[in-house]
């Protein structure tokens, strides 16, 4: 017995089942494709994070790491699985700046130089910044730290600074050679005088010995004495007696001066190890005045007003470089003003202790710096000097070394036609002291 509505319902039910089966197949296919895309995205993301030449650490509000890339493994010397769950703050040596960690970030932090500690205890200089990761509701539940290993950069910077220092020394080489040559010249003159005098004195001594022998033998000596007196006149014994000791004094003084110049030059040229040490700033001033003597001696008189200051924690080589650059600049500024007039300018160097830092001033009465150039003179390669007198690296290096390397401060007072005073403030305790604004 046929029942049309029932058959229709059965047919409809069958068709629905077919439809549903088809939809399930389609959804399954879509799901498979979506899964493959997700896997590919995850793989691509993993490849990208592995390839990034910076350590990436994701951590929660509690500061515990939830994700670390391969670069983080290599940098810190520990596998990812041991990094996961660690407190991110524990990976850094505590510094003056706030440490990444259990805090809710509201914005990306600027890149900061920090020290990471590897599993072997090695201290690794890094450049690190941190950014919040916002969820769909705009809340920060996690943060990501990006950390660059800057050991190679530090090494290159060290090499560059040493090269710059040698470049500066090289530029002064002619002057230093002249400085050495002057005392060597009068040592040479003195030694020649003493050499000649020694022959005459030796001959005179022989005559005195002959006289003595005759006296012992009871023979007449008056004629011999007269001849000897004539010989004394001939060799100008009075002159030799007066100038001989002075010639020795000059020779000793000259050799001492050469020794001092060579020692200072050697100290100045010696590469520092990149580590900070206690530096006598006043001693550095005196050394630089020796090295740079030929640069200023024809155009300026130097006055040192060096106060009682403690040794500062600094990079010795860089401080010497700063002093040298400032003194040479001052000398050149004066030379530009006085020209061939024969007038002499003044350079004054003073040091004072001001609270937690030392204040160094280098003043000259040279050309002064026009207002529109006062920022530019610190730009790398900017120079107003003629070719051969500078490459524009001097004050740029000073700025980099004082501000970036020592967290010091530079200020400039200048008046065109009157002169310039450079103010350098350096923290006694080294970088990490916050200077007043």
């Amino acid at each position, binding site marked *: 017995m046929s029942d049309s*509505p029932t058959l*229709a*319902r059965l047919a*409809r*039910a069958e*068709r*629905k089942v077919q*439809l*549903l089966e088809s*939809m399930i197949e389609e959804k399954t296919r879509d799901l498979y494709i979506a899964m493959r895309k997700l896997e590919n995205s995850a793989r691509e993301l993993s490849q990208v994070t592995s390839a990034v030449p910076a350590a990436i650490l994701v951590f929660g509000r509690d500061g515990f790491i939830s994700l670390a890339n391969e670069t983080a493994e290599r940098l810190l010397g520990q596998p990812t699985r041991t990094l996961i769950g660690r407190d991110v703050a524990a990976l850094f040596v505590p510094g003056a700046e706030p440490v990444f960690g259990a805090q809710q970030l509201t914005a990306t932090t600027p890149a900061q130089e920090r020290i990471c500690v590897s599993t072997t205890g090695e201290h690794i200089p890094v450049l690190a910044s941190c950014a919040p990761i916002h969820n769909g509701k705009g809340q920060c539940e996690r943060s990501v730290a990006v950390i660059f290993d800057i050991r190679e950069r530090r090494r290159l910077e060290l090499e560059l600074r040493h090269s710059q220092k040698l470049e500066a020394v090289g530029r002064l080489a002619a002057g230093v050679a002249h400085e050495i040559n002057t005392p060597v010249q009068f040592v040479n003159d003195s030694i020649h005088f003493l050499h000649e005098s020694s022959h005459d004195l030796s001959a005179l001594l022989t005559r005195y010995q002959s006289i003595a022998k005759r006296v012992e033998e009871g023979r007449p000596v008056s004629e011999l004495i007269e001849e000897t007196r004539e010989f004394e006149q001939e060799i100008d014994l009075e002159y030799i007696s007066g100038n001989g000791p002075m010639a020795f004094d000059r020779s000793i003084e000259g050799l001492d001066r050469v020794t001092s110049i060579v020692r200072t030059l050697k100290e100045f040229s010696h590469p520092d190890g990149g580590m900070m040490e206690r530096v006598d700033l006043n001693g550095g001033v005196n050394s630089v005045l020796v090295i740079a003597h030929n640069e200023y001696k024809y155009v300026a008189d130097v006055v040192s007003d060096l106060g009682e200051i403690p040794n500062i924690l600094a990079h010795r080589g860089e401080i010497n470089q700063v002093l040298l650059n400032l003194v040479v600049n001052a000398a050149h500024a004066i030379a530009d003003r006085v020209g061939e007039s024969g007038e002499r300018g003044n350079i004054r160097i003073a040091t004072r202790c001001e609270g937690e830092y030392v204040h160094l001033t280098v003043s000259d009465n040279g050309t002064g710096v026009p207002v529109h150039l006062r920022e530019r003179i610190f730009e790398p390669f900017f120079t107003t000097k003629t070719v051969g007198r500078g490459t524009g690296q001097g004050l740029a290096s000073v700025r980099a070394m004082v501000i970036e390397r020592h967290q010091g401060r530079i200020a400039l007072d200048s008046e065109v036609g009157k002169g310039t005073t450079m103010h350098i403030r350096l923290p006694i305790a080294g970088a990490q002291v916050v200077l007043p604004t």
Partner: protein
Amino acid sequence: MKGVIFNILEEFILDGWGREAFEDILLSCPVHMHEGHVAPGTYADADMVTIVQKTCERLKVSPADALTAFGRFMFPRLVARYPQVVEGISDPYQLLEQIDDVIHVEVCKLMPDAVTPRVRCEPMGDSDEMTVRYQSSRKLCEVFAGLLQGVGEQYGRTTEYRQLSCMHEGSDCCVFKVRFPIEESGI
């Protein structure tokens, strides 16, 4: 329109008028509708209009009354199929407030190609009457009115509403004033 609505409409007709009436209505529709509808499927809005039209013709009921009754019938069945959508909602006013930002978001997670109406509620202040704005290209405000009744019943309340404007009369949305007074228990 999603197939689940068609399924509930089928239940509505079967429940009210029986199998024979439903089969007659279905056969009076275009051939492509004879296959029936599966819940996860997506079908033309015009198919729903056709079924409603044929239903009203066959059963001699007014379309407005039929649609409102259908809306009231549909709400509890939607809740039964997708209880997670209304989970944690404790009163009818709260449910209406969460239609757009929560309920329809969850619906779209389950059915990504679902096209949902826009339902906006204004703050009530000290009043117990809520202003609700319904907006949809389908203009099924009668169904929405029925859904409001279903919402009240879901939470054991009566539903009192009045419609202040209608898209069928040219307004850009249908504005309802609705309140859900708590039923006094008879002693």
